[in-house]
């Protein structure tokens, strides 16, 4: 029973990682590629990491192997926290820099951010 839960979590994680890479290949634009390549991989990474944490907790509490299980669970939880902290922040910075370096979204009719960044505001004042 326990293995089936682990296999389902691993399967969902790998499926979303593959989906993110496929979207990175297929989408037409930097911003849509960021959407696919960052959101889907973060979601898949959460599922795969949670499955490893569950394995560690099972070894810790049910098999009674305290040293191996606790180190596996706690270190993987720290790695999950690192992924959750760093990945959306990096994606935000990339989208901001792509917009500031002058790349327009494909098919966008109106760009509301256009006059709100500092560089463009300065140019408008002059």
């Amino acid at each position, binding site marked *: 029973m326990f293995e089936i839960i*682990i296999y389902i979590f691993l399967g969902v994680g790998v499926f979303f990682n593959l989906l993110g*890479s496929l979207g990175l290949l297929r989408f037409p634009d930097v911003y849509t590629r960021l959407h696919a390549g960052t959101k889907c991989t973060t979601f898949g990474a959460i599922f795969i990491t949670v499955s490893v944490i569950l394995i560690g907790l099972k070894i810790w509490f049910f098999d009674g192997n305290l040293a191996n299980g606790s180190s596996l669970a706690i270190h993987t939880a720290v790695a999950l926290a690192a992924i959750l902290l760093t990945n959306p922040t990096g994606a935000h910075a990339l989208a901001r820099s792509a917009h500031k370096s002058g790349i327009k979204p494909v098919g966008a009719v109106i760009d509301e951010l256009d006059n709100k960044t500092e560089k463009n505001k300065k140019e408008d004042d002059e």
Partner: protein
Amino acid sequence: MIDFIDLNVLLLVLGLLFLSILMALIRVIKGPTAPDRIVGLDTINTIVIVSMIIFGLYKEAVIYIDVAIVYAFLSFISTLFIAKYLEGGDF
């Protein structure tokens, strides 16, 4: 230490993650603009972190997971730095 999980499943997971790394690598090579390539590199970094965790589980060595933590923070710093560089202007 892991006797209730088939280790071949972990190998299959590693293979599929490698396939998705290859698909992101195509975008890194093909990408028309510089931010496209950086998006591909960011995706590759996340998948490499995940596959390091799975590899640490496969080899039953927690040291690979520690390496994954450090890799996560270093790749975050490099992504922020490249984004700041692409933005232009003064630092």
